[in-house]
């Protein structure tokens, strides 16, 4: 069975600085997807970034980028130039591309961006 581990329950960062959220996963599958979702205090879950396991290039979306290390089963999220609006719960999630296609979620990391 797949598992997703986010080892940092809470983090904080100063506005304009860079922060990295960690995520590790366990799977025996070779074809899968990884996601970072953001859930601000308003509670709308928003897709931040998506990574396909067969792609070696790390995904990037504006200030958000990932460091995908497939051999190490690591998928960290880097937020550059942090903004107050980045304050949210961040969930890492795994999706098997084969059978049993449902999201496996980590427990989340609560990020506070301080002015």
């Amino acid at each position, binding site marked *: 069975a797949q598992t997703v581990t986010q080892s940092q329950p809470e983090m904080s960062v100063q506005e304009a600085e860079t922060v990295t959220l960690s995520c590790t996963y366990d799977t025996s599958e070779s074809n899968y997807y990884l*996601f970072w*979702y953001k859930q601000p205090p308003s509670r*709308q*879950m928003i897709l931040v970034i998506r990574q396909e396991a067969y792609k070696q290039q790390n995904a990037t979306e504006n200030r958000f980028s990932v460091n995908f290390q497939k051999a190490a089963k690591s998928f960290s999220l880097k937020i550059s130039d942090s903004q107050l609006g980045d304050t949210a719960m961040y*969930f890492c999630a795994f999706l098997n591309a084969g059978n049993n296609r449902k999201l496996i*979620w980590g427990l989340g990391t609560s990020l506070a961006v301080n002015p």
Partner: protein
Amino acid sequence: DAMVIQNPRYQVTQFGKPVTLSCSQTLNHNVMYWYQQKSSQAPKLLFHYYDKDFNNEADTPDNFQSRRPNTSFCFLDIRSPGLGDAAMYLCATSRAEGAEQFFGPGTRLTVL
């Protein structure tokens, strides 16, 4: 803009009184999901529809039912809400079962 809409945003019901939550989407996605999310926890998948095919999670209580009358709409029925069913209920859609999911704003259910 294409989106996932949930109504109502807040729902208060009494213990044991049936309640229905609504989700609609303008994305024309084939798959629709219902999640339950309790405070400070990750979402828990209750069930999903791939088109008209209903897929129930093994640990979803029988108290929870769902209907999908057409591509755009999906309903979550809680037949006899208990205090433990108070939660945020999230609807999500995806183009296919292996694609990324897009979420609605959620319905916060309070059970008195």
